[in-house]
Structure formats: C-alpha cells, structure tokens
C-alpha cells in the first residue's frame, strides 16, 4: 500500500519536471572590462547539435572552451567563434584563460 503510494508520488514528480530549455541556436557573449555582460549564463545544446558560440571581447586574451579543449586568441575589440558539433556530454566552462574569468557554462545534454 505504502509502496504503491510512493511509486505514484515518484511518477508524479518525474512527470512534473518541465523539460529543460535547450538553446540549440547561435549564442553570443559580450565581454566588457574582462567580464561577461549579464553575468555568467548557462547555455545548453543537445548532443549532436551544432554548438555556435561567439565571444566579442573588449579585452585581449585567450578564450578556452574546456572539455572540447579549443583555445582561440582574441584581440582587443575582436571576435572569436566556436562552431563545432556537440559530441561530448557534460558541463564545461568557457573561460578567459589568462584572467581565469568564466564567461559561460556550457551544458551538452543527452
């Protein structure tokens, strides 16, 4: 009896979760004074989609997309674009490497 009640509650909770918003579209991060405008956002893609992330920076540094381990130098006032297939699931940070400043969290979900 109790077990049945637990299963029903679990089922209700499992169903109630609204599916997370998966971006799946191009995203842009603007960096001002070496910080991301609007704070550190979490950007989501589904595995298999194309990640399309552009960083516009007023600060010269190296942008490091962790996990996928792509490094790109950005000039002062310059732009870099990460365009690649989302092949690795997980949570990764995109960072201004030398300033150790996180620009965004990227989540690639199954």
């Amino acid at each position, binding site marked *: 009896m*109790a*077990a049945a009640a*637990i*299963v029903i*509650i*679990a*089922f209700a*909770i*499992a*169903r*109630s*979760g609204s599916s*997370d918003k998966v971006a799946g579209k191009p995203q842009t991060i603007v960096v001002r004074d070496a*910080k991301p405008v609007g*704070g*550190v956002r979490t950007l989501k893609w589904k595995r298999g989609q194309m990640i399309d992330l552009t960083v516009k920076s007023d600060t010269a540094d190296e942008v490091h997309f*962790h*996990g996928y*381990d792509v490094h790109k130098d950005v000039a002062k006032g310059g732009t870099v674009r990460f365009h690649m297939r989302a*092949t*690795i*699931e*997980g*949570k*990764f*940070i995109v*960072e201004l490497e030398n300033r*150790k*400043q*996180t620009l965004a969290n990227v*989540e690639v*979900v*199954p």
Partner: protein
Amino acid sequence: MRRRLAVTAAAAVAAALAAPQAALAHGIVGKQDLPIPRWLFAWAAAVVLIASFVGLASLWPRPRLERVRARVLLRSPAVLEWLCGAVGIAVYGFIVYAGFAGTQTATANIVPTWVFVVFWVGIPFLSLLFGDVFRPFNPWRAFGRASGWVLRRAAGGRMPEPIAYPDWLGRWPAAFGVLAFAWVELVYVNRDDPSTLAVLIVAYTVFQLVGMSLFGEERWTRNGDAFAVYFGIFARLSPLRWADRALGVRTPLGGAPALEPRAGTVALLCTMIGTTSFDGFSNSTLWSGPNDMSQHLTNTFVKLGLHQEAAVQGAYTVGLLMMVALIAIVFWIGIAGMRTVGGGESAPALARRFVHSLIPIAAAYVVAHYFSLVAYQGQAMGYLISDPLGHGANWFGTASATIDYNVVSATGVWYVQVAALVIGHVCGLVLAHDRALVMWSRPSQAMRSQYWMLAVMVGFTSLGLWILSASAQ
C-alpha cells in the same frame, strides 16, 4: 574622501561579484558532471524508500555480520612487505621531487592529478574492491619502520619505549587530518600549485615521523595517519582482507562491525561524509550561483576587513564546517531517538556502537561524487607518466595521449551515481540492523530502534541524491 571610500567599496563589491565559482573548481578538471535529471531523482528516492521498508520487514532475526572471520587464501613472504614499502617510498620521493622540479602548470605536472585523483580518490576505489592495498605501500609507515629498524640497530637495543597512546586521543588526529586535506582540496586557492602541494606533503611527513617516534609506528599509523585510517576504513567493506602477511576472503561488509569504536571515530565518519557533501554542494547554485550563500558570506568577511581572496576562503571554510556539522547533527538526532527505545546506554556509547553503519554511506558518497573524476581525469595519467615534470619528455611514448570524455556517457555517470547511493544506503541499513539484534534482546525493540536509524539513512541518501540533482543546481 567619501568619494574614494565609495569607489573602494564599489571595487570591493565588483571584485566579490567577479569571484567566480570556476575559480574554486579544480583547475585540473576540464569537464563537470551534468546534474541528474528530476525523473531519475524521483525514481531513485522511491527505490530507496521501498527498499528500506521491504528490508526492515524481511531482514534476518539473528546477527550475521558480527563475527565474520576471513578464510586465509595465501601467505606472502616478509621480503614482499619490504619491497612494497620501498616502492611506496620511491613513488613518494618522486612526487615530492616533481612538485619542486617540474613545471608549475597544474595540468602539465603530475603532482595535482596524482594527489587529488589517483591517491585521494583512486585508492578508496581500490580499497573497496581489493581491501587495504595502501597499507603495504604506505610511505610514511615504511619510512617509520625502516628508520626505527636502523635506530634500534645503531642503539644496540637501548631504544626508549614509545609513550602509551592516550585513549582520549583515539582517531581524532585522523579526523582532523581528513578535514585538513578536504580544506586544501576544496577551500585553499593554491591547491593546484605543484610546489605548494610538495611542501604540504613534506610537512605531513614531518608530522607523521614525530607521531610515530612518540607512540610507535603501528599505534600511530592506526590512529594518526589520516590517509592510512581513511583508506583502511573503506577497506573494511571489501571481501578481501590483508593482515599478518596473509590474504583472506570474507563476507562483503564483514570487516565493518569489527571497527573498534575508539574516541574520534564518530567525528571521523561525519567528517568523511560532510566533506564529500560539501564538494558537491559547493558546485550548486544555492552555494555559488549569483547572489548565493558563498557570496553573502564572502561579503561579510570583506566587511570584517579581510581582502578578497582570504574572504572567499573564509566563506568556503564556514561552508565546509557547516556541512560536517549538519551530518553530525542528523546522526545525533538518530542516536537520541534510538535511546528512547530503551536499553540504558548513553548517547555517546550508542553513537559508537552504530558508527560503523556510516561506512557504506561514506563510500557511496565517494563513488557518487568522484566516479567521473576517476573515469575522466584518471586518463590524464596516460600522458602524465610519460612527461611527469611537464618538461616535454616522452618516457613511454604516451606524452601526446588525451582524455576521451566519451568513455562514459552522462547517462552512464548518472546511473553509477544513483546505484552507488542506493547500494550504500542498503548496506548501511544492513549493518545497523545486524548491530541492533546484538544490542536489544527482543526483536521488536531492535526493530523500533531501527526506525530511527532508517530515518538517518534516508536523510543522508536523500541529501546525496539532492546534491547530485538538477534541483540543487
């Protein structure tokens, strides 16, 4: 003047806002786990609750694990012990050397990955499967035994007797040691710096040598060597037992009831669970998102006059201690409840009687939180052993190896995490039930005492699941 103050204050706030969570995640880790989705969280919690009720109704009426003996499989010669000790000392020496002589880039030097992944997490995994594998290789014990042997030889048998180890001290040095290591791992900003780690390793060695020379190698290692005690506790769950140069097999979990409940053991187990919990919790948005707990605490410390870096460390120290305290409080509530069933034991005595049932919970937390670290970051050893100092060497031809993040999928990691917590939960209940049967002569009394333990275990397992889940992140 006022304007300057305002500017300074604004700068402080800006700096505080800029202190990102990533600055406090390991620099050596390139990928973090995705939180477990809500549906899996709900189902896992349901399985835990049902398993608990079914378990309570169908468990055995007589204790089964209290007097487990190991059956000896094979014996090893004494020379093997010396050989393992020598290997332990050689590896230790090399790691310290690499810390000082190697590159100071965390990812290119072998030391951070060795300390935080292979040593701290890898050995518990091995201990759960194969028993106390660390003991023969323990460099501090080997060094203590070797130097003791040399000194006894030199002194011609006129060595002073070691001091009797005080009862009240018990495992407290190990509990503080585990807390200190966790502080370095989770709070200290320079934790990934190879030479800093080497200095800390040497400092720990000095502490161990003093302890061993005062109290004797064996007595000190069993109480005061935080790592030997920590790994040895996990080894008690293993079906393999190494002792007196013999390898034996026993029922899994069979080593746990024999844990001598010396002073400090409850503190040690609560520290083990609490520090691992904080590792997960400190990644949650509740702790390190915008406008969260760590931010408020950091601002408080800045107002008290600490500079930014010290304030962040202060906030994380408070968080770490609060998590350990929370675990201790939940356990004590369960113990206090159990006292109401009768039997006349004091709360501390009851706590010591049941502390071994926390070992599977601690193990489950470690597996759930660190499985992916071992699976992914463990692969870094592939290139680090070829170029341990980061100077461009290629000793084994593997220096250009990389980490394959697809070796386990996110879904695979979720299932391992949930399975670890559920299995740990059931094992904890089994151990507590077995002990209750010894303590209370009437099975009905034993049963009632276990409702309290059940509540504690459900609390810990739910906390573990919640920390891993999307609702916490």
